[in-house]
């Protein structure tokens, strides 16, 4: 990662051209939750609800996804669970979104419990806010240095840590895969997001890890602050100025949020490398990245540096 915006020399990875450009990312606030349940199935169901409608801060408020599955040995209560990462543009937005989602999606799901997954002086309320559902029958219990709330529910108790930590993080790391066909770029995306999935400290919040609706800042409509990035829309070829050639049939973007710039750079490297190696130049015309000229985000991930 670098803060400069100088063009980088072009390179190829497994024969796929890598454009001399950079991904532009932004400072965000993040938290991690650990969700457990009596079975993996219940944990996944609760997580699916919790991370639903959490693809982009543009309209969802937060970007949230499952970081990884946890074995019973890795969870505080010895049950199967998942680690979930959430990112927002401000701590205030996290404080608004997390308790609301936890209350409607985790507290409601049978057998679940919710724990803090990250430290930090600044805190996001969990049980501290949800406890009132107990209507006076809730129980507070301090174990070690952590406070938990036990809220009576119809299957027993909903156990919820009082709060979770909030840390500074980075959102909006990305790369674009330029495909010769929809099949090829779709495969490349799947491969990239599967390669990124095991990495700790990062999420790809869009469905399947990829988005087709790469955006630019602003719109001809005054009420929109983001709109389609026509420069990469193949159906507009010939109508607008585009950096992509005639051989590009479809473009898909992998968006990455991470706890640190280094984790995002690593995820970009892993994702791009996997996609290029397995799909190759027969399927991919090239790899590029999205930026706003370096004017909006202070984190610049140059593809050449990331892949070095």
């Amino acid at each position, binding site marked *: 990662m670098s803060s400069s915006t100088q063009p980088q020399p072009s390179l190829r990875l497994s024969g796929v051209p890598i454009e001399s450009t950079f991904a532009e990312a932004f400072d965000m606030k993040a938290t991690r939750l650990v969700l457990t349940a009596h079975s993996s199935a219940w944990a996944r169901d609760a997580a699916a609800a919790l991370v639903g409608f959490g693809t982009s801060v543009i309209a969802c408020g937060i970007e949230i996804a499952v970081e990884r599955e946890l074995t019973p040995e890795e969870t*505080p*209560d*010895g*049950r199967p669970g998942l680690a979930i990462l959430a990112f927002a543009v401000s701590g205030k937005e996290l404080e608004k979104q997390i308790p609301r989602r936890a209350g409607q999606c985790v507290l409601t799901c049978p057998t679940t*419990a919710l724990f803090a997954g990250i430290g930090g002086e600044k805190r996001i309320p969990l049980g501290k806010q949800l406890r009132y559902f107990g209507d006076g*029958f809730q*129980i*507070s*219990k*301090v*174990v*070690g240095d952590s406070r*938990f709330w*036990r809220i009576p529910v119809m299957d*027993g*108790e909903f*156990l919820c840590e009082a709060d979770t930590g909030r840390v500074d993080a980075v959102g909006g790391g990305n790369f674009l895969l330029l495909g010769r066909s929809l099949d090829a770029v779709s495969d490349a995306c799947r491969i990239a997001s599967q390669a990124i999935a095991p990495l700790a400290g990062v999420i790809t919040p869009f469905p399947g890890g990829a988005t087709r609706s790469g955006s630019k800042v602003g719109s001809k409509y005054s009420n929109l602050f983001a709109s389609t990035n026509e420069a990469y829309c193949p159906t507009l070829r010939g109508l607008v100025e585009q950096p992509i050639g005639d051989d590009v049939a479809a473009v898909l973007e992998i968006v990455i949020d991470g706890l640190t710039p280094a984790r995002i750079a690593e995820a970009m490297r892993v994702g791009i490398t996997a996609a290029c190696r397995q799909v190759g130049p027969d399927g991919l015309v090239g790899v590029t990245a999205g930026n706003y000229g370096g004017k909006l985000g202070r984190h610049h991930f140059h593809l050449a540096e990331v892949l070095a």
Partner: protein
Amino acid sequence: MIGWQLQLRQPPPGDVDARFLGAAINGLSVEQILHQPLPLLGCRHPITIGDCFAAEFVGDDRVTLVGDFGRFHGLGYRWAGGELVIEGHVGRSVGRSMSGGSITVVGDAEAGAGEQMCGGRLNIGGNAGDDIGRPLPGRRSGMSGGRIVVAGDAGNCAGYRMRRGTIVILGDCGIQVGCDQVAGTIAIGGRVAGNVAPAMRRGTVILSQPMELSTVRFTRPESCRLGIARLIADDLRADAAAIAALLLKPIVRSLGDLSNGGTGEIWMPACDR
């Protein structure tokens, strides 16, 4: 903290208010320590530490008191950091108002151990007297943080009016454990004499052996699966492995004291019927 050792070389002529033998002597020189007054309870004329003790600096990082301190009351008063080791028995109210660090009593402790304690760790290697974690006179609630671990037996009213923190008693316990308990956790590895948690308001008493509770004051024991039990088991494992193991098995819970409007809970092993 500078490590030093006080060796009791002559018993005091009476009971000693030993509150000064705590956090207040941290950072003093040997000379200063030996000249510090030791008030005798009921006597206007204090003796000095030097009258009873030989003091020396030692290489380790802790304060060690060696001898029988059964007539020394309030040892470790306001202890806030570092390690205090008492190699012998201690009198009343050891660890009174302590807020951090650790105090280890190798022998027995008389009544009021951990009185008004709010943090840190108090280990009692032998038996403890009555009223562990009790409030200071005039206070409404007692222990409000930290942990007391008693390796032996404890007297009556352990955890009297405790509000937070953990008391672990590995041996047997007298009557009225958890009396007037406001909150916090008390775990008992041995037998309990009876009349558990009268007037308990909140908090948890963990019994290692099933016992009959007053049906007037407590709800019928119900088997339940509590996620918090696993967390408490993990927390207790280092101090009380047997109690921790019990918490991973089926338990029953009673709520009370109903006569007091309390919603405290008593956990005990589910017995086979």
